């Protein structure tokens, strides 16, 4: 048997059933000794049976003389019938003389045993057979019967909430809480008349009308502008422009959106915004090495918005809700810009970008403008994802079509020296005569990637190395899909671009090659681009320095006062004429700027002061308003603008959690018009889409952003304020008392009181007591005598 078990591998349930039968069979036939000796198969019963007689009686007093045949389930001498464990450790019946005789007989040949005897022996060992104790008892019928009777006997009421009144109230609550309101066309169905409501009918006609018009009007363009730079970087600018009908901003109608993102329209409509700009930037655009960007942006976040004048709510509250909503949309902490403390309304620096004639005038009130910057904002993929979702050709997953396909690999886009997300919304003329208006939403992602290789002066990039993917499919919704490569460098560098461009144009002196991805032959194929450019050894590098460069830095050290110096370098070879610079600075209130320290000098000689044409200075107020400085300067040389400030000591609860990191001063903004012959591709105000600005001559308007600054304010040692304050106060209190006493009071010696013996004191006490008693008695007597006298007089 044991051999069999060793050789054959059987599964656990098989073994269990096998053992059951084996055990029962052996128990019914063999004696106890037999079981224990030959029972190598019975796993638990392998142990020798416990000793008998006196010791046994002492150990197991309750089982009488019932024979212990094995180890049992737990090693205890217990009897039970169990399917799981069929071999109990003791027999069922106590040993009687009859059984003992039978056992003896059992030792011999079993043929001599009668059937009854065999049964008797079995019953002595076991109470029930396997069939008997595993038979169903039928107790469930009893249980269910009684439960049903119990249920039947109980009277149920409808719950309180099922009454009609409560149900109605619940429905009202659902409507009030807007739980799953039905929207769209189906919600207008009138169930009573079984037709669309009359209001809607007229609406529906309108919608159909709008639909007919607007679908034709919505235009979506996508462009990619690439410029290899001298410094070994390459500038990529993805531009997505949507033009839509202005009807989506009208209130009280059903709006139909085709390509224009609904969320943006909602925000703009509800807050009465006429145009806005928002940018989220990581890194700093290096003007001196990279030239001019198409649109500049300061590090961190920047928002400005023009509001419509004739609205019910005031601008401040609209600005707050607009910033909150936009911040929520872009996952940026724009809610910090909302208050008056951090926003301002400059006069000249941020005029409306709209091309409409009514907004073009300079007479527009600057109180409708709000500008704010957050230099501390950190830009990450969580900003890119919601931004990306506003584009029409972005599908779920990574199945984007058109140039948006390049946005798939977000970490690649952030592994760059400069990364800037931008969104501009404005109103433009639909035609040259400006008889009708349109809305334009321009979204752009600019990145500057270091494409230099280990080989000196040799640059190499492909779409895959920069974006991590190629343009797989064209976007069917876009009316224009172009890739431009700016070949500014071709004069000094040898450029090698694959594939062959479709056609080339010349913008000023800059050659540009263009790929039209919407054309028939490119439409169905994957578009991949690669480029290598290396510097020709003969050429010199300084051939194209940018026309204007800004550099700003903090001066001074320590935490009492400091200053800011802004150097505006103008390339004097290119600018023969005077140019007008608009300098705008918004400084948090805790840097108290002194206007009298404002000094504008030329860079070469700091004794020559330049008088600005216009200065607008709004002094800050503690915890209410920031300092704003706007200067208009006409100059033909490089200039230095410097001023000084004093630092405020913040209240302890105004410090951020990392006070020793320092406090940011936002970038200064310098706006100017570049001379028209500059080589840079800039955004023209006529159209944010490059396609149009390339064909028309640009007006040369640029906005340059300087570095943002990090300055340390006086900061208390937060690590152990309690210790210091408590100890300091205690020391002052202790020392002050003593010093005050010493300086204001005169110490002198009183006469020493003579020691009086106890007996003397007791005597004194007695005398005093007697004296008081006498005094009391006298007073009483006096009163009585007075009475007597009184009576006597009467």
């Amino acid at each position: 048997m044991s051999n069999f078990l060793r050789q054959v591998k059987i599964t656990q349930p098989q073994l269990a059933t096998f053992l059951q039968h084996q055990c029962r069979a052996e128990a019914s036939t063999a004696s106890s000794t037999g079981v224990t000796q030959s029972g190598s198969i019975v796993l638990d019963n392998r142990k020798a049976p416990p000793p008998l007689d006196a010791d046994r009686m002492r150990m197991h007093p309750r089982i009488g003389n019932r024979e212990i045949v094995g180890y049992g389930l737990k090693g205890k001498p217990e009897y039970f019938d169990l399917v799981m464990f069929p071999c109990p450790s003791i027999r069922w019946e106590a040993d009687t003389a009859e059984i003992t005789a039978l056992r003896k007989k059992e030792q011999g040949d079993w043929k001599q045993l009668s059937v009854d005897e065999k049964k008797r022996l079995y019953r002595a060992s076991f109470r029930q057979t396997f069939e008997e104790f595993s038979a169903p008892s039928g107790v469930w019928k009893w249980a269910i019967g009684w439960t049903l009777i119990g249920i039947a006997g109980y009277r149920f009421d409808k719950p309180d909430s099922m009454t009609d009144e409560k149900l109605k109230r619940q429905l009202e609550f659902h409507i009030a809480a807007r739980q799953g309101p039905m929207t769209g066309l189906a919600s207008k169905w009138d169930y009573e008349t079984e037709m669309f409501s009359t209001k809607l009918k007229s609406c529906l006609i309108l919608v159909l009308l709008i639909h007919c018009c607007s679908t034709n009007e919505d235009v979506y363009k996508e462009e990619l502008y690439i410029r290899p730079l001298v410094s070994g970087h390459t500038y990529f600018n993805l531009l997505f422009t949507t033009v839509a009908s202005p009807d989506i901003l009208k209130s009280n109608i059903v709006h139909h959106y085709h390509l224009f993102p609904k969320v943006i329209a909602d925000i703009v409509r509800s807050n009465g915004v006429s145009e806005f700009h928002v940018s989220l930037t990581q890194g700093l655009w290096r003007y001196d090495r990279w030239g001019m960007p198409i649109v500049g942006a300061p590090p961190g976040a920047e928002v400005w918005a023009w509001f419509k004048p004739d609205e019910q709510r005031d601008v401040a509250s609209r600005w707050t809700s607009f910033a909150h909503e936009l911040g929520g949309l872009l996952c940026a902490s724009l809610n910090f810009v909302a208050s008056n403390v951090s926003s301002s309304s400059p006069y000249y620096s941020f005029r409306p970008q709209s091309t409409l004639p009514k907004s073009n005038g300079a007479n527009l009130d600057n109180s409708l403008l709000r500008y704010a910057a957050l230099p501390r904002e950190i830009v990450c993929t969580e900003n890119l994802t919601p931004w990306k979702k506003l584009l029409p050709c972005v599908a779920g997953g990574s199945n984007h079509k058109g140039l948006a396909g390049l946005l798939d690999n977000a970490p690649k886009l952030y592994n760059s020296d400069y990364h800037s997300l931008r969104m501009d919304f404005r109103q433009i003329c639909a035609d040259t005569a400006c008889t009708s208006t349109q809305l334009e939403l321009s979204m752009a992602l600019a990145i500057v990637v270091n494409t230099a290789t280990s080989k000196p002066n040799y640059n190499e990039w492909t779409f895959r190395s920069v974006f991590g993917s190629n343009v797989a499919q064209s976007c069917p919704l876009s009316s224009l899909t172009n890739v431009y490569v700016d070949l500014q460098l071709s004069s000094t560098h040898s450029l090698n671009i694959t594939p062959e461009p479709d056609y080339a144009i010349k913008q000023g002196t800059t050659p540009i090659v263009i790929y039209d991805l919407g054309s028939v032959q490119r439409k169905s194929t994957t578009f991949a681009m690669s480029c290598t450019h290396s510097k020709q050894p003969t050429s010199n590098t300084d051939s194209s320095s940018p026309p204007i460069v800004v550099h700003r830095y903090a001066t001074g050290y320590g935490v009492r006062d400091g200053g800011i110096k802004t150097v505006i370098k103008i390339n004097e070879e290119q600018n023969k004429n005077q140019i007008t610079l608009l300098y705008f600075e918004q400084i948090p209130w805790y840097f108290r700027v002194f206007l009298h320290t404002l000094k504008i000098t030329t860079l070469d000689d700091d004794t020559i002061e330049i008088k600005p044409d216009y200065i607008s200075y709004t002094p800050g107020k503690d915890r209410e308003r920031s300092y704003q400085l706007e200067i208009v300067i006409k100059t033909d040389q490089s200039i230095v603008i410097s001023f000084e400030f004093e630092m405020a000591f913040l209240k302890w609860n105004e410090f951020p959690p990392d006070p020793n990191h320092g406090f940011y001063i936002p970038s200064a903004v310098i706006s100017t018009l570049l001379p028209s012959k500059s080589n840079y591709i800039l955004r023209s105000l006529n159209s944010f889409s490059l396609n149009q600005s390339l064909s028309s001559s640009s007006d040369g308007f640029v906005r340059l952003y300087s570095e943002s600054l990090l300055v340390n304010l006086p900061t208390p040692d937060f690590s152990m304020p309690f210790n210091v304050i408590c100890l300091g106060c205690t020391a002052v209190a202790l020392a002050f008392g003593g010093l005050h006493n010493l300086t204001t009071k005169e110490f002198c010696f009183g006469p020493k009181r003579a020691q009086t013996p106890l007996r003397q004191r007791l005597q004194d006490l007695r005398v005093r007591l007697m004296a008081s008693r006498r005094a009391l008695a006298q007073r009483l007597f006096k009163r009585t005598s007075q009475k007597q006298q009184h009576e006597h007089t009467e």
Partner: protein
Amino acid sequence: MPLLSNLLAKDIPQTFQKFQLHVYAGFFFFGLLGFVYLMSPIVSRRNYLSENALSPGLVSNDIYISNEHIRDIIGQLRTGFKEKNISDVIQSMFVQRGIEAYKQNLEDDTNDENVYGIVRAPRLASTESIILVAPLYVRIQSKSQPIKANLYGIAHTLAIGFALHRKPYMAKDIILLFPAQQENGTRIWLDAYFNTKPDSIPLDAHAGSIQAGLTLEFPHEKFYSIDLRHNGINGQLPNLDLINTVVHLCDKNSIPASYYDIYVDLSSNELFIDYMKKSLRTLLINALTLATGVPSGVHGQFLHYRIEMITLFGSLTKRDQYQTSPITLRAFDDIIEGFIRSLNNLLERFHQSFFFYFHINRRNFVSIATYMVPLGLIVAPALIRSLVLYMSFFTSSETSATTYITLGRTMKFDMNYSAMFLEILECLALSYVLMWIPMKFTYLIICQITMFISPILLRPFRSTERQFDYLQFILLLTGSALLGCLSLLNYSMAFLAACFLMPCYMFAGCSKFDHWIIKYFCRFLFLTCLNPLVFLALYHYLARLLMAGEFLLPNFNQLTSDFDTYIASYRLFNAWTVDVVCLAIVPIWFLLYRSTFWIRTLVDKTQ
């Protein structure tokens, strides 16, 4: 407010009056012993990194710089040094790799130039930066060649800068500065960076607020240990966390790090007595060098601008008998890389840990709370004595019984002040003259001699005992206030000044006794032991002894030359040690000296 209190001398226990001198001397010596006791392991604390953000840099390394690369850089630098166009060579090396680099002319006749490159971090808009400084030339302690080109330091700084150029994890710009003319070039660069001087020409590029940095001085191509130098201007010290980061990195790469060339082996191999001796030496040198107010390297200038920095100097001394090979390139680069990455991870400026401490050895330090106690013990007698004197005035005024009435107020004790203040003015004037003369040791001796014979030339004021006590009282208060202020600014200097001034007070006070021998003994002591020049010489000898670590004979020539170089360098660093000595400590001493001539018992007797 007039003093209303009326403390009387008779309130003081008579026993105290009797044992006053013993008590004062006891305080003084306990203070001295207490200072020495600071080196015991019971008092000192083991250092730790208080700022958790510093730890990641200690973990793993990413950069690998090959030996060939370093050798190539050193080769280029060597030709640069030979052809005297080192700044051009360094700049062209930067530009080749696409890193912006600029030069700054020192605007003097030497035509030397500072070079600096900025490795821009991709993740941040140049608002914060870390600085690595490698002076073009380094002072070394050898007679034949006072300065040597910092070849190895420059090469490693450049190599680290190049290696970190395109690392995506860099969040702070790295400024690599190579100043010419050591401290002078550094000062000019810093002035220009922060635009502190109106006439300084602004730099072409900045990199935001500089957080912290490291100076590398490695003149020798091989080195066996690193010496950490942290003394700043006027006893300023860098944040302890910064030093601990470097020490941790050195320990991790098993590079022996030492202070003042004293290496304490912290393993159990060393005898306890050796440990104590070395710790005491470190402590004393620390106090003696910090007292001068002159920094021990270029980093001192940066500390002045709140840029935490220390200097690593590649020392040729072997710290272990088993150390046969020099420190490997890899280990050294790991230190710099780990340091930069630790700082890169830092969100805030260094503000945790300690700014006031004394190093016992590289792993143990004494904080300000502990080391202030000995100084307090030393200065305490001055305060007690002034209180005693103050109380005694009332007794004497009672006996004189005349009260002057001035402006309606009753003076508690009368005094003829005019002569006394004339005397004080005289002494101050003399010490101001001392400030004007060129600081040469010989001139100082002449000056000292004038001071000594001044009581004979300008007959000092003949006073009563009360006036003498009053002067003492004023001087004691001034002295203790001075030492109290000084102890917060430059503890070591305050300690040394207290060690010098306290015996002076005592012996000046002793001259009150009515015996001519005592009087002459006091004057003699002022001429010999309690003489500032003698103290200076003693200080110098002690410092030399401690620095050398072995017995030396006093050397007068060494003293004069060291003093001259000290005065020359002191002007460079905005230090105020000499000013404090000349304008406060010397006048007090001089007044005390002159006061020993005040009371003339013999004359009084004849009257």
